[in-house]
């Protein structure tokens, strides 16, 4: 057996949960599963932040989930940058939810890795060394794309969420 894992997204002032999201589409509205062409970003502006968590819904006989890593593969359009709160050092603990914003994120102040990080970059229970030994949730992953005024096209890339599972 294996543990059952999903990615959840939280939106709006009420921290409304969309469980087991099937995409991480980003745009000019605060919503999960948005259609990017319907919510384009004006060049020079940002997407709304994404606030997401990794959730273990069943341990499936495993004893531990840990070593959470997130990164993006694939290039962004133009000079856009992808920022996140994920980091492998100086982790400041779990970020408390705040309504997603489209101004420059104050929480996501790191560049999203574009390859697998060497070590965990998303915490559990406020620490990168944290783990789950029963169903539960990771800390919040916050990320946002910030575009440049000269950017004229969007892009498609892939978010990667990885964990270790101990049987």
């Amino acid at each position, binding site marked *: *057996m*294996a*543990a*059952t*894992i*999903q990615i959840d*997204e939280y939106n*709006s*002032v*009420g*921290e*409304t*949960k*969309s*469980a*087991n*999201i*099937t995409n991480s589409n980003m745009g000019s509205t605060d919503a*999960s*599963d948005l259609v990017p062409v319907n919510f384009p970003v004006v060049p020079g502006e940002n997407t709304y932040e994404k606030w997401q968590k990794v959730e273990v*819904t*069943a341990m*499936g006989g495993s004893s531990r989930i840990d070593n959470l890593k997130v990164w993006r593969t694939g290039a962004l359009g133009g000079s856009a940058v992808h920022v996140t709160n994920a980091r492998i050092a100086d982790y400041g603990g779990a970020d408390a939810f705040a309504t997603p914003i489209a101004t420059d994120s104050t929480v996501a102040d790191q560049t999203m890795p574009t390859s697998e990080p060497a070590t965990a970059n998303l915490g559990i229970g406020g620490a990168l060394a944290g783990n789950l030994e029963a*169903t539960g949730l990771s800390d919040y992953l916050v990320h946002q794309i910030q575009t440049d005024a000269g950017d004229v096209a969007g892009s498609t890339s892939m978010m990667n969420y990885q964990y270790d599972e101990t*049987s």
Partner: protein
Amino acid sequence: MPKDTTVKCGACKKVFLSDKEYLKHTCITGFTPTDVEHFDKLSGGRFSKVSASAIKRGEAKK
């Protein structure tokens, strides 16, 4: 504003009043969100069952 306790399933788009209800529902996969088969189907069928004895023999590698 109080926290919204409703949960929308990203797979079937149904809205549930609580996490507990969400975790119990039978989704479009035919399984509940706590079933590993649900995870497998939504991940494109990347997993295969391996017996504990096979794992002990080293036949299931990372």
